[in-house]
């Protein structure tokens, strides 16, 4: 069996250059689709579920699913950390502690990789089972420069080779100001990856604090802070969209204390995810496959990726 639907594969079609084209689709042929899901009720993980507790639709067509043992699929945890100038010593210290908690939760066979981003993206540690190496690299992170969130996410999704499940944890304390790529491009890449993305934002871009103020020179004097307190801005919204498209989450850590809690929850959630497998039936067409996963007969929040891409078969 191959994990093809969620993995980056081979692009098989080519079309006239002068016509606008739809994004390419990856994969070769869908034999089995693996879906990584997390179930919670009132914030508490729901464990002990069986395949028969779920119902799954692929492009609206019900599928027969089975549970795959998660321990047969080592995890690759990719850490992408904002080390721009705004990440001061206190934030770095909290980030180190939080990431150590996450690394400790990984199993010996799981791998970890580390990216840092400021003016540039740097790949500090390539995938390794040696968590101590990653810890050491995290200790050596130095902050400075601007912020390249989208470029870093792209690197985190593209560079580490993972045959199976991949968890990307991106930490940032603000907004992008130097990336070349934008959120639409990254969402498209994320949808084609096999990664679950979690974004931990230390200063939530929504809420009263960052709202538009007429005394703020960057806001051009239109709004007051009071009347925009609940207006969500594109950067935070985009990160939420990207994370949720992969079955992950956008976490707003409002304080340094909450940072560690967020990382711990991400680690716990990864350990309590269900890996569901099915051989698609009645949905062989290429393109975007919308996945709907629910529980039968009970209410709970089910987080999973929004779908996957399938390419046309090569003639």
């Amino acid at each position: 069996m191959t994990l093809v639907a969620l993995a980056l594969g081979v692009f098989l079609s080519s079309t006239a250059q002068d016509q606008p084209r739809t994004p390419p689709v990856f994969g070769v042929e869908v034999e089995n689709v693996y879906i990584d899901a997390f179930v919670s009720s009132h914030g508490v993980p729901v464990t002990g579920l069986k395949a028969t507790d779920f119902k799954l639709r692929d492009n609206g067509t019900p599928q027969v699913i089975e549970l795959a043992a998660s321990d047969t699929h080592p995890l690759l945890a990719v850490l992408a950390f904002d080390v721009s100038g705004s990440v001061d010593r206190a934030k770095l210290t909290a980030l180190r502690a939080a990431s150590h908690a996450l690394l400790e939760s990984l199993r010996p066979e799981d791998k970890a990789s580390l990216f840092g981003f400021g003016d540039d993206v740097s790949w500090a540690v390539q995938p390794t089972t040696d968590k101590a190496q990653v810890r050491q690299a995290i200790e050596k992170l130095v902050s400075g420069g601007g912020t390249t969130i989208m470029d870093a996410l792209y690197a985190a999704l593209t560079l580490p080779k993972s045959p199976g499940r991949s968890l990307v944890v991106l930490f940032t304390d603000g907004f992008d100001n130097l990336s070349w790529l934008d959120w639409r491009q990254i969402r498209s890449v994320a949808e084609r990856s096999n990664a679950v993305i979690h974004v931990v934002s230390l200063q939530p871009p929504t809420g009263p604090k960052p709202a538009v103020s007429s005394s703020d020179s960057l806001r051009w004097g239109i709004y007051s802070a009071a009347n925009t307190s609940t207006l969500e801005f594109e950067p935070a919204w985009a990160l939420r969209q990207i994370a949720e498209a992969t079955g992950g989450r956008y976490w707003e850590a409002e304080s340094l204390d909450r940072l560690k809690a967020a990382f711990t929850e991400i680690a716990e959630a990864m350990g309590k995810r269900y890996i569901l497998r099915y051989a698609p039936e009645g949905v062989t067409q290429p393109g975007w496959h919308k996945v709907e996963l629910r529980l039968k007969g009970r209410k709970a929040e089910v987080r999973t990726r929004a779908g996957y891409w399938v390419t046309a078969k090569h003639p």
Partner: protein
Amino acid sequence: MSWRTVKLESSLSPRLFARRAFLVGCLVCAAVTRIDAGNLFQTAPVAESAPQVAALPADYREFVQQYVSGDHDEALAFLGNWNDERLRLQIKRLKEVVVTIRSCAQCPERQAFVRFPLRAAILLHGDREIQQEFRPPTNEQPPTCGVGLSAEAIVHLSAILKLVDPKAGEFLRPFYLGMSRQARWSHCSVESALWARSGLRMYPNDVPLTMALGVALETGAFFTLAPSPSTPAGGAVLARQGAQLKMQIHSLEEGARQAFEKAARADPNLAEAKVRLGRVQWRLGMRDAARTTLEASLKIGDADSHYLSHLFLGRVLEEASKWTEAETHYRAAIALQPLAETPFVALSHVLFLQGDPEGARDALAAGLEATKHRITYDPWLPYLVTQTNDGETLLATLRRGLSP
């Protein structure tokens, strides 16, 4: 980074800020109406026999003279000791002087100001304005920006200078440009635009000032957070606010487009005008115009501007699904800046789009490796967030020109 996320703790209330902005804009316009060509500007000390500048207090004249002598810090400290009330009174007097001089070519006041070191006074107030109103952010923290009373003083002093000195433009053009660039370096986009506009009101066809205005607007658009594309849960009020914010960004980019277009028309060999015009045209959805402009920019300019043109052209073509053409431009950008990460990221993504994930991975890995050896700035990095304070360089040159 967080400085886009946190509101400024400006010492100015919104109303006061708006009032001062209005003053800076309007007073220059109202005050400067004609130039007297009969007098030459001098920075020499006030002669005993010359008419005194009755409108100016003795201590003010004294510390302006100190500034001329090169004691900039001391003069600035003296001015700093003036409270707002005193400064407002001074501004009122200067405003009256503008009216007097404009209406009376032979008045003693006019003769007095011919001999008064107006340039030094303007620079001194400029320094005070920078000290008080532009606080460059450190480590991506929010900037603190505004328009202070010294800006109002500068408006009147500039008007007087323009009335009494036919060569005022040699000083005022670079001064306003320097202030605009200083503001930009301090991440004060509004103030940067205000200073450029103030200069343009006196010298409407000045190309560097036009460019400064365009860059301030382009940067302002970039740093104005767009609302999320989804319909806000808060209902009609939030939807309206979101729509207004989008319109605001659009109008900033449109303002930038007009400024760059004007600059490019005035100086067809100004590559930066074409590069920036191409980018804002792309931002405004004018893809064909952007392509034409950016291709034209490749016929002029230097390697850095060609690098940016290739990057932006690549982006325009990528969005039009012309991936192989985009790839060509990204590779051209890499050839010009082989140690910059940006074109490798761009190339990697367009290879990804073409169904070459291995090529995408290799290109990105090469870029991350190359940038480790970079010793100069990738020209993309300071494109929107300037890294050099060339405003201060301009102002320093003007200060040096004061030496008796």
